[in-house]
Every structure is written in structure tokens, then in C-alpha cells.
């Protein structure tokens, strides 16, 4: 059977109620077509474009035609709507992809690649074509009345933050469900414990993950990690599958340096930065007057100045030991700034101004305090609320790419009062950091993620 006859059969099948579950079309063929369209399966041969070979990572149809096949525009270049409307169009995809022309024999724009499809790929794309953009297209974790999302908790040793996050996400979803859900679907949050389990949900929400196996799985499975609560060492790409809610360690370190420079000038002290994590570059102009040390061994440091202001980019327990050594006897430090996310010893005198760089707006800490709950629960609520809003803006035909894009458009929306999001195309993280002077023991972020 030629691919073109197969398409006609598929279309007739799709249009006929008697054709149950695609009749004789194997579900695996539809799945393969979906995978080729969305780029989770590579084409067997690289397509050509304008006399050049396009790499596999840039060959997926979704890149130009979108998750619903509705097309799009970049600059003066337009990608057309390729959803099928009539049976007569049923071979439109293959003629366009392989021959670079319309059904009326008009050549397509030169920006349409020429695909060299194997017979199996032709059959797979033909099987999926009638579904794209339609209500009949199945999306993992989504049914007509429910969307299932996952909170990732792979490590039982660190289960407590994730358990709190799941509780917070569940609170947010319960509120949305009480108002009818999102586009008629109720939202349900479940715990997922492995990359394999994660592939059963529509998206991850509020998750803590630094598991390379999971990171690969996100891309391979079109699995968005929405409003992730992982603290990344480096800024993530604004176009990747993870949309972190919290700022990167670098962004927090930059805020710390600004505060350390400004406050040490006010207090007349010598600013040191203990950067054992090497978050800040030695050439970073933001260092200003700050002297940076990458060791937290007291013996490797010079004699401390009489008035020492300290910034600590170091994890427990060694940072606590260093702090003890530097503040032994009657020596104190007028200023101590630490990252709340890394945990920090509070061994300082009452005369010390102790600031925490919080990986969220200070309103989040205030929310947790007012609600009498851990900050992780509040963070889970915020992640859940942001995802609810993104899904609401995604429309009823949910696709992971669309939900992720809508999440990143939530700039200005506040998932918790007083904590608006700042996601933008040039800012990959949902929230900026803030400085908080509340005593450390009131902050629930003692465990480093």
C-alpha cells in the first residue's frame, strides 16, 4: 500500500465512528508519528534545506509549525497551519515534506526542509497527521476530566522538603478544583519517584531534581518541569524543558555581593567572601571591594581584619566551623550574609547584622510565617498556583510545549501575594532573590535541596 493510499484509509478511518480506536492502524504507528512530529524521535535521514543538511536537533516539525500545527511566524518568515481539514488534504503532509510543494503543485517557501522519509516514517506521519491539533490527540497525563502532574521525590533521605512541596501543590490544586478545575478538568498531584514514573504525568511541578537521568528524560519525553524548585548552579536556558521558579545560585550570589559592598561601606568593615562553591568568578566586576577566598580552612586564610564583614557561599558544616574560628574569643563580625538555601551557622553575636539571601521574594517567607507552615509548603503552593494559571492560559487543547510557554509568559502574575513572577524570554527563573533579616531559625530552608 502506498503511503498516499494509507493516508486516505486513515482519514476515512478517523471520520468513521465504526472505526474503533483507529481500526487497523497500530497505536505504535500513531505514537511514532507523534514522536517524529515533536522531535522525540529523530528522522532516519537528515532533511535538506536550501542545499544544506539540517541536523536532527533542528528537524522536528513542531519547531516551526507549533504544538497544535497552527503554524507561526518569525520575522518575515511564516510557517503555515498544517492541520488537516478534509480528506482531500490527507496527503498534504507527505507531498509538502518530501516534494516541497502543495497539493496544487505550487512550490513551498525555500525555508521548508525537504525530508527524506523512509516508508515507515511516511506511514507513521500519515497515521498521526489527522490527530494533530484535534481534540482526539492524546496527551500523556491528560484525560477529558483530569490532568495529572507529578512532584518528583526520588531520594527518601530528603523526602521532607518534597513531602511539604506536594502538600503545597495539593493545596493550590484543591483551590482550583473547588472552582471547577481548569477548562473542565480537575488537577491531581502525585508523587513520582523515578524518571520512568515521571513519564506517566503531563508535567512535573515544584520539583527538586538534579538527576542527570531525569534531565535527559525531560527532553526525550516532552516532559516539562514547571516551576521547579531546584537551585541550579548555573542559569538554565530560557528555552529548555525546565522552568525554575527559584533563582540560580549565581543570581543569589550577585545580590549578596551588592549587599556586601553596600553594607560594608556603611559599616566601615573589610568585606570578605568565602566562596568554596566557586559560584563567583575571580574576575567578576561585581566583587568590587570584596576579597574572595575559595577555601574555608581557617589556616589558609590571612589574618582577619579587625572589622570583618563576611559573605558565605559555603555549605554546612564546614562553613559553621570557619565562622566559629573567625569569631572566636571576643571577636565578632559586624555583618554576616549567607545564602538561606545553603544553610548557615548562626554562631554570631547579637551585635552582628545577619542577612539571608532568600531564593524567593521575602513575601514568600512572610506567607509561610503567617500560615504557620514550612516555607516548602508555601513554595509548593506558589508552584501549584503558577501551574494552574499557566494551564488556564493554555486553552483546552493541552500540549506540554504550550503549557511551558504560557508559564514563561506569567511575568507580573503573583502566585503568592506580594511575590510577582519575573519570567521573561531573557530571564529563565521565575522569581528574583531577596534579602531578609529575619533570624535564621525562623526560616524553613535549612536543608539544602
Amino acid at each position, binding site marked *: 500500500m502506498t503511503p498516499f493510499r494509507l493516508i486516505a484509509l486513515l482519514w476515512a478511518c478517523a471520520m468513521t465512528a465504526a472505526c474503533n480506536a483507529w481500526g487497523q492502524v497500530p497505536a505504535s504507528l500513531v505514537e511514532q508519528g507523534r514522536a517524529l512530529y515533536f522531535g522525540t524521535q529523530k528522522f532516519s535521514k537528515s532533511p535538506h*534545506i*536550501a*542545499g*544544506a*543538511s*539540517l*541536523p536532527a*536537533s*533542528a528537524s522536528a516539525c513542531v*519547531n*516551526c509549525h507549533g504544538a497544535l500545527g497552527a503554524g*507561526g511566524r*518569525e*520575522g*518575515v*518568515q511564516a*510557517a503555515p497551519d498544517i492541520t488537516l481539514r478534509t480528506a482531500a488534504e490527507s496527503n498534504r503532509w507527505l507531498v509538502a515534506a518530501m516534494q516541497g510543494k502543495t497539493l496544487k503543485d505550487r512550490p513551498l*517557501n*525555500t*525555508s521548508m*526542509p525537504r525530508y527524506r522519509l523512509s516508508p515507515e516514517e511516511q506511514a507513521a506521519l500519515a497515521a498521526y497527521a489527522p490527530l494533530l491539533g484535534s481534540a482526539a490527540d492524546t496527551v500523556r497525563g491528560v484525560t477529558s476530566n483530569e490532568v495529572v502532574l507529578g512532584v518528583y521525590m526520588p531520594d527518601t533521605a530528603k523526602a521532607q522538603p518534597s513531602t511539604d512541596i506536594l502538600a503545597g501543590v495539593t493545596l493550590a490544586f484543591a483551590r482550583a478544583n473547588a472552582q471547577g478545575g481548569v477548562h473542565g478538568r480537575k488537577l491531581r498531584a502525585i508523587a513520582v519517584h523515578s524518571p520512568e514514573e515521571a513519564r506517566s504525568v503531563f508535567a512535573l511541578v515544584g520539583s527538586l531534581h538534579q538527576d542527570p537521568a531525569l534531565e535527559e528524560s525531560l527532553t526525550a519525553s516532552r516532559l516539562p518541569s514547571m516551576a521547579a524548585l531546584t537551585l541550579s548552579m548555573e542559569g538554565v*536556558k*530560557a*528555552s529548555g524543558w525546565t522552568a525554575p521558579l527559584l533563582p540560580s545560585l549565581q543570581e543569589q550570589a550577585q545580590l549578596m555581593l551588592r549587599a556586601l559592598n553596600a553594607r560594608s561601606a556603611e559599616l566601615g568593615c573589610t568585606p570578605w567572601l568565602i566562596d568554596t562553591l566557586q559560584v563567583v568568578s575571580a574576575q567578576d566586576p561585581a566583587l568590587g571591594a570584596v576579597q574572595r577566598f575559595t577555601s574555608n580552612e581557617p589556616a589558609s586564610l590571612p589574618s582577619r581584619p579587625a572589622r570583618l564583614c563576611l559573605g558565605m557561599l559555603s555549605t554546612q558544616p564546614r562553613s559553621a566551623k570557619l565562622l566559629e574560628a573567625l569569631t572566636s574569643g571576643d571577636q565578632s563580625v559586624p555583618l554576616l550574609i549567607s545564602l538561606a538555601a545553603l544553610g548557615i551557622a548562626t554562631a554570631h553575636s547579637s551585635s552582628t547584622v545577619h542577612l539571608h539571601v532568600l531564593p524567593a521574594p521575602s513575601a514568600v517567607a512572610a506567607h509561610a510565617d503567617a500560615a504557620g507552615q514550612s516555607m516548602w509548603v508555601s513554595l509548593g503552593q506558589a508552584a501549584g498556583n503558577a501551574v494552574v494559571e499557566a494551564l488556564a492560559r493554555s486553552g483546552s487543547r493541552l500540549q506540554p510545549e504550550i503549557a511551558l510557554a504560557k508559564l514563561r509568559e506569567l511575568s507580573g502574575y503573583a502566585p503568592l501575594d506580594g511575590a510577582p513572577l519575573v519570567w521573561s*524570554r*531573557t530571564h529563565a527563573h521565575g522569581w528574583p532573590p531577596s534579602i531578609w533579616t529575619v533570624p535564621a531559625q525562623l526560616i524553613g530552608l535549612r536543608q539544602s535541596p
Partner: protein
Amino acid sequence: MKRRSFLAASACAVSSVLAQPKAPVVPDVSLLDEQGRSVRLRSLLVDRTVAINFIYTGCSSFCPPQTAVFRATQERFAELGKVAHAPLLLSLSIDPLNDSPKALAQYAARFDAKLGLAQGWMMLTGDPATLERTTRAFGASSARVDDHPVQLWVGCAPKSRWFSTTGLASADDVLRLMKAAAA
């Protein structure tokens, strides 16, 4: 047929080519290559035949084809024959806030692009103000990065000869325009 008209006509094999547009006034700025090294833009152009496109690494639709075309062009430099002004492909980032030198290097690796002056292809980024000045000189500036025109400039400063195209130019087109610019 006058020489200039002939060159324009031969270049016009590319349907959207603007033959002999006003030469861009290239600002004397420093940009960064994919290894973070500072590069003076004018010094790159002063004695070379250049083709310049405008890309950003987060672009999933039309930048990859433009980059693939440059990759194919680079492989076919030998077809230019012996030219007095060495060929150079320049890919200028239009997204300085996201396109660090490292991001450019990673993007280039996706295309197996061999970058460097000796290889005849450089990808450059820089601070936002500098890149804005640069892209404005080529009429490639836009308020939104995904609204940027799909544009190619080909020129030879020693010959004071420039062409620009809109739409996706093929490797054949790029080579033909480079030949015409350097002739």
C-alpha cells in the same frame, strides 16, 4: 552591460536580493567570539569577503536553517577559487542576554560548525548596547528577538560592494554573492 549592472544581475539569481544596497556603516566595536575572546568587528571586515547572518541560540525555527546553510557554504569555500580577499562567514547574535560565548559554542556544536578565523566562520556576541549598534547598522535590529528579519549581507569592503537578501539564501546563493562581491 556595465560591470556593476552585470554583478547585480548575476547576484539576482537570489530572488530577494537587494543588489548594491547602501554599504553598512559598521561601528568600530569589540565583540566576543565563542571562546570569549575580544574581536574588533571592523578589523574582520577590512580585507575580507564576508557573509553575515543574524541568529540567536534559542531560536528553533529559522536560525537553524540559516546556520545549516553557512555550514554547507563553509564546506564549499574551495569553489570560490583563489580570491584576493579571504572569505569569512559571520553569525552575529541578536540575543546578547542569552547568548554567552559558551551558548554560541554549544549552538555551533549542534551543527558541527568549525569556528575560527582560520576556518572562515565566526559566531559573535557582545553586550546588548554594542550588538544593538551593530545589528542596526545592518538593518537587522528589531524590538522582539523573534521578529528579527531573516537577512543576509554579503560584502567586500575593499571593493565597496555589498548585497543583502531577505528570506533564506541557499549555499549556492551565498557563494554566488561572495564571488560577485569580491570580483
